[in-house]
Every structure is written in C-alpha cells, then in structure tokens.
C-alpha cells in the first residue's frame, strides 16, 4: 500500500512537471506560429497592394495604348460575336444565336 502511494505521488509529480514543461514548449510553438502568421499576413497585404496597383485602370490603359499599340474604338463600332460556331450551317439564319457587343469607348474630341 505504501509503495503504491509513493508511486502514485511520484506519478502525480511527474504529470505536474511534464504539464509545466509542455506548456512552456507549446508557448514557444504558439509564439513561432504567431511570427509566421505575421510574416504571411505582411506578404498577403503586400500582394494585395501590388494587385490593386497593377490592376489600376490608368495603368492598364497606358500599357494597352503605349506598349500594345491598342487604341480606343471609334464611334459606332459594332462587333458581332458568335459564342460558338455550329458544325453544320443552320438552315434558318434568323434563329442563329448571336450576341451584339456595342462598345462605346471613343476618344472623341469636339
């Protein structure tokens, strides 16, 4: 009985010490993960700012006109877009699915 009590006491001491040590270990782990999280959050914010900056309308317009040689469409330009050409020509042309994209982005100067 005595031996059992001593062993139980030792076990309790061991569990107590182990719990304290493990708490400190987990504490360090949490802190490391927090630092990692902060670094990742910084990267995320940086990428978000970069994305927003790179997708700015004035930058895209500048790239389109200066680098890619694109220009704003002229007045009344109509672009007919057919989503998917059919393999066999339809007999009834009036029922052909057709979308009309009317683009008004003129660089008109009055």
């Amino acid at each position, binding site marked *: 009985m005595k031996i059992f009590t001593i062993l139980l006491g030792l076990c309790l001491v061991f569990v107590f010490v182990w719990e304290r040590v493990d708490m400190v270990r987990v504490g360090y782990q949490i802190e490391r993960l927090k630092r990692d999280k902060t670094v990742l959050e910084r990267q995320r914010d940086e990428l978000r700012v970069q994305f927003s900056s790179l997708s700015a309308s004035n930058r895209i317009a500048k790239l389109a006109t200066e680098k890619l040689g694109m220009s704003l469409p002229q007045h009344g330009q109509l672009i007919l877009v057919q989503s998917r050409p059919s393999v066999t020509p339809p007999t009834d042309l009036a029922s052909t699915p057709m979308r009309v994209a009317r683009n008004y982005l003129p660089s*008109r100067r009055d």
Partner: protein
Amino acid sequence: MAGSGSRVRRYVLLLVLLGGFGLVLFRLVTLQVLQAEELSVRADRQHQKTVSLEGPRGTIVDRHGKVLAMNMEVPSVFGIPATLENPAKTARQLSSVLPVKIPELEKKLQQNRSFVWLARKLDPEQGRRLDRLSLDGIGVVMEGRRFYPKGSLLSHVLGFAGMDGDGLEGVEHRYEAYLRGEKRMMILQRDAMGRTVFPKSLAERSPVPGHQLTLTIDEVVQYIAERELEDAVSRSRAKSGTIIVLDPETGAVLAMAVSPRFDPNALSALKKQDRLQNTAITDAYEPGSTMKAMIAAAAIEEGAMKPTTMVFGEHGRMSIANTVIHDHEKLGWVSFAQVIQKSSNIGAAKAGMVLGEQRLYRYLQAFGFGQRTEIDLPGEGVGLVKGPKAWGRRSVASISIGQEIGVTPIQMVSAIAALANGGVLMKPYVVSEIRDAEGHLLKRAPPQVRRRVVSPDTARSVTNILEGVVTHGTGVKAAIPGFRVAGKTGTAQQIDPKTHRYSNSRFVTSFVGYVPADRPRLAMIVIIDAPQDKKASGGSVAAPVFSSVGEQVLSYLGVSSDEPVTLAMAVPNS
C-alpha cells in the same frame, strides 16, 4: 554503551535534519509570505514585457471591392550610435539602401545618443535589402503605413492619413472613428533569453483592426471622369475642373473628380499651389445659366409658366433697375421652352419676376441651395444665398440667370438629380457600407430622401425642355449617340479681382444634365474653371466632356441604347 552512542548520533542527525528543514521552511516563509509581494513585482518586471499594440487602420474599397487605401506593415530603420565602431563605414553601406544621403546618415550615427531614427516607413523591398546587409548597431522595427495603390485616383475624396496614422482629409478624416484600429496593451511573458513565451493571460486578445469602408464610387467611372476632365482642362488651358457623377435615384456618388489632383502616397512632394481641399464640395461658384433649369421647374410647378407660354425676348436687351440685361441672341416672341433651350437671360429673368421674391427664394431653398447637402465628406460649403431682405432691385432677375448666388458643384448636381428622378431631392453620399475586419456588416447607408421639390409632371415637363437644349439648343455637343440627354449649359462671368466687376475674359463654363432622359442612370455636372479662350462657353467646353464621359460610362454600366440596333447577319463557315 554502544547503544547510547548510536542513539546520540541518531538524535544529532535528526537535529541536523530538523535544523536544515527549519532553515528551508524559514526561507520559504520569508520568500513566499513575508517578501512575496515585493519579489512578485520584481519577477514580473524581469519576466514580463508590456507592449502597446494598435490594430491596423481599416481598408477603403470601391463599390466592387477594389482596394483604394489600405495599411501595410513596413520597415523603419534605427541606429544605436553607441555600439558602432565605424559610423562612416556603416553610413556608406546604409546609403545604398536608404533614401538618405551619406553625410546626413553619418551625422545621425555620430550623435551621442542611444537611439536614433535613420529612415521611417520604407518600402518592403528596402527592408529586405537592409536585412541582407545585417549591420551591427542597426535595427529594424515594423510600422503601419498607409498605401493608396491607385495613386492620385480619387485623391480629393479619399484624403490621406498622416505619419502617425490619423486621417487628415477626405473620407480618411470623416470616418476616422471607424477606420482607426483599436489600441491595446498586452502583457507577454519572456524567458531568460528575452524570448516571448506566452501572453500572461490566454484571455488577452490581439488589437482589433479598423473597419472596412465600401464607397459608392466606381473605380472605372472615376478613372473615365478624371481622364476626360484632365484632357479638357489641359486642352482649354483652364485653371481647374470638376466632374461629379451621381446615381439620381439614390444620390450615390459614382465619381467625383477634381483637377488638378495630388498623389497621397507622396505628400512630401506636394507643391505650395497644390490644393488638397475637395473643391467639388467646398467651393461655391456662380452657376450662370445652369440655374435656369431650376427656375423653369419652379415657374412650371407654380403655374407661372408653361412650356408653351410665349415670352417676348426684347430683341436681346432689357433694362432693369438702371442696369441692362443682354442676350447673346436677339429674340422676339419665343416659347418658354425656347427661352431655356436658347438660354435667354431676359426670358429667365422674366420667369423669375413672375415667380416673385418669396416663391423664388422658397424654391432656391427647396432645391438645396444655401444649405449643406450633408454629404458624408468633411468641409462641405453652404454656398451663398442671401435672403430676400438683402436683395436689391435687380436680384430676382440676377438670381434667375445664376448671378448674385453661389452654389457648390455638389448642390447643383443634387438639384439636377432631383429633376432627373421625378422631383425628389436625395442626400448625396459616398460611403455605402461599413464592415468589421471579419467582414460582418456593421452599418449600411440607405438612400435618403431629403424632400420632394416638384411634382413628377413638372419634372417631366422640364426634362422635355432640357432635352431640347441638347437636341437643338446651346448644349448640342453634350449629345450622346443612341441616348436621350437632358441638360443645361452655363457660362458664368467671374469677378475680376482688380476691377471688382464681371470680367469679359474669365468664365466658369459648365454643363449639368442627366442621361438617359426618360430613365436616368447618371446625373452629372462638368465644370471647367477659367478656360483660356474668350469665346469659351459651357456649350463648347463643358458639354463635350459630358458627352464623352456619359457615353463611356453608359457603355461600361451596360445601359442599352434608345436606338434600335440593326443587326448584320453572319453566315457561319461550314
């Protein structure tokens, strides 16, 4: 004998052990009870670190969630001069990374101080390059910095935040209470190496970031407005310009452009003449003939005029109170609709006189002139509207043609939006939603009706008249192919600061209107201030800008044309 000796030794041993335990117990009681408080404080001081943390400032996004302003942690660099062996060498190494000249760095590093800032709130890339140098006596701390990724876009509306993160202008200032992150003191436990082990209490939370604001502004509409405005200001060599685009049904501001702009990312590069104020809401101007749209609405609502009422144009010259009112065209008998379409000063003055002082003043107030629109931006002006008691003998006529009155651009566009939506004055607003950092909705700004100004019938009559301004009046250049446009031109003389009289060479040219006229999606004002052309007018300078912006924005919003589209038939290749 041997037994008594052994007993003595046992007693001695017991005594020693008891003495030892007694000493330990005494020390224990001393440490844990008698000196407990003092030692606890000392241990806390050694083990704990109290840090003040502030949540990052909230993000501002446009109506489609595109980031317009956000905070980012960036490196700030400091030096510890006392630990440096060769400050000159360190300064040379640092100068390859920091935007500071070598002599200035040397001067800072040679100071007899334990801490000195070398450069604050650098770009993240500069911080990474500095890390690679790994210099002794040089440290880096992270600080929050405000970024405006779209540069100068919407600068006058967004405003900016200062070095310490306080909103100083625009939305940044007006919504400071929502944008600012929460400040919190945190107690951290640290070990013998100084490493953080754990917060003292698990219940302690990290500081809360500021809220996210969603604006009514559309980044693309804003870009179109700013680009066209800057082109127009540059082309006409004007002093400045303003465009406001509203949704007339709700009062939501889709774009608010002021030229010239500034870049809130580079405030240190601002010049003295750069204006940070949002003049679209702060500054009053004489509206000139654009005021005739409201005079027409008041006269029709009161039954004083009908669109078909015939008015004599006095052949372009009429005397009032020892002064003369001129028209740019010598008109005889014309309908009241033609008075507005041809922008006759004499006809508008007569309409004002039929209305009389009291009714005219009542309608000025009803349309919101002389009062703040209560738009959610700081520094809004009230304009200048005197009461009838302060009016002279010519005042009724003058006010009817947009003189002797000062209005702000936001007041004028709100008034025209009231005619566009059937007669209801809406409160303009720029922030539509406030959400917390987790995205939970905290506040939504619903459209707010201020008052009904005129009946839907009157609004419809005025719309018909204003359509005529664009189809065959002074505003033909505001026309947008495929759409019905209603609007009014304005060319107001400015006061010459030398003579204190109306100048014949300095004008404020403007156009205010809405489109499509029968189911308005946009109400817009275009103001070009002081174009360098004596013949400049609202019809020649501002109206084309209205057309250009309106055409592009309607296309972007997917508003279908009023005209039937003729389809070309394509035969698919077999």
